[in-house]
């Protein structure tokens, strides 16, 4: 296995890092929906934090993608 093959395998392993980000985003939106269900007039305030949290969690997934691009052969 040359360096190029190993780099391709490494890129595939980087894609496994997206799993945690998917769980994180699902958790954020689940909690937002639950909060809106408990108190519907809190929706505006909670929605703002929901989108901020979503962007921050998605950023972690994209850090993994950046590493995949760095090791691309």
């Amino acid at each position: 296995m040359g360096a190029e093959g190993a780099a391709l395998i490494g890129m595939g392993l980087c894609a496994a890092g997206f799993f945690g980000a998917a769980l994180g985003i699902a958790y954020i939106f689940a909690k937002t929906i639950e909060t809106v269900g408990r108190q519907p007039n809190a929706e505006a305030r909670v929605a703002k934090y929901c989108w901020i949290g979503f962007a921050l969690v998605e950023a972690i997934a994209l850090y993994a993608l950046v590493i995949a691009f760095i090791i691309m052969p």
Partner: protein
Amino acid sequence: MASDSHAAEHTSPLHHFEVHNVIPIEIAGIDLSISQAVIAMWIGIAVVFGLFMLIVSRGVSPVPSKLQSIAEVLLEFVRDMVNEFIGKEEGKKYFSFVGTVFFFVLACNLVGLIPGSYTITSQLVVTGVFATGIFLMTLVIGFAKHGAHFLSILVPPGVPKIMIPVMVPIEIISMIARPISLSVRLFANMTAGHTVLAVLFGLAMTAPGWIGWAPFGFTVVINGLEIAIAFIQAYIFTILTCVYIGDAVKLH
């Protein structure tokens, strides 16, 4: 990050991020040529400037017309962000800077979605310079406002005295991580979006007609998602700028 070697006959999906010079200009050995990135930045500036000039050209009246109320909604949005994190009196000094950051990043993100155009915020140098500039600005604001007492930002409130030598290196690392994460977040989101679009379009073009419509439909959906991501990422960049400036001003 070279394009693919002998393994694939097509260029890599990252090839449309390469910068090509339109008018080569070289002054004293420094490459100042007009490239696609420079033209895209000019278009971003022209869009923001033209939009607000158009709104103001009809005159500003206490009873707002439709265009003026759009501008008022946008500016109130930025003003609420600034007031929440920096405070009302201090926020007046930083409102125009934060507004500029928000509208410029939003315009550059959206201009890149036009087919054939170039997204400058998908280059790490551009977002890195934005984020490093903002970080240095917060340091200058903190030292100018508080002097040497600004270093107390590294010690969170309510920490027992014995833990301070342990906390300070951790806080320094988290401070240095701020411009890095700010720039990489915007860069990675824009690059990933455009790369996914490039890969899907390639699949839609090279697949036979009876299956090529499925990736094409997916591309339409992803394009809509990219517009939403452009807005969200500009908003996140601006709100983190406000948080960092607010940290430097309020020291906790």
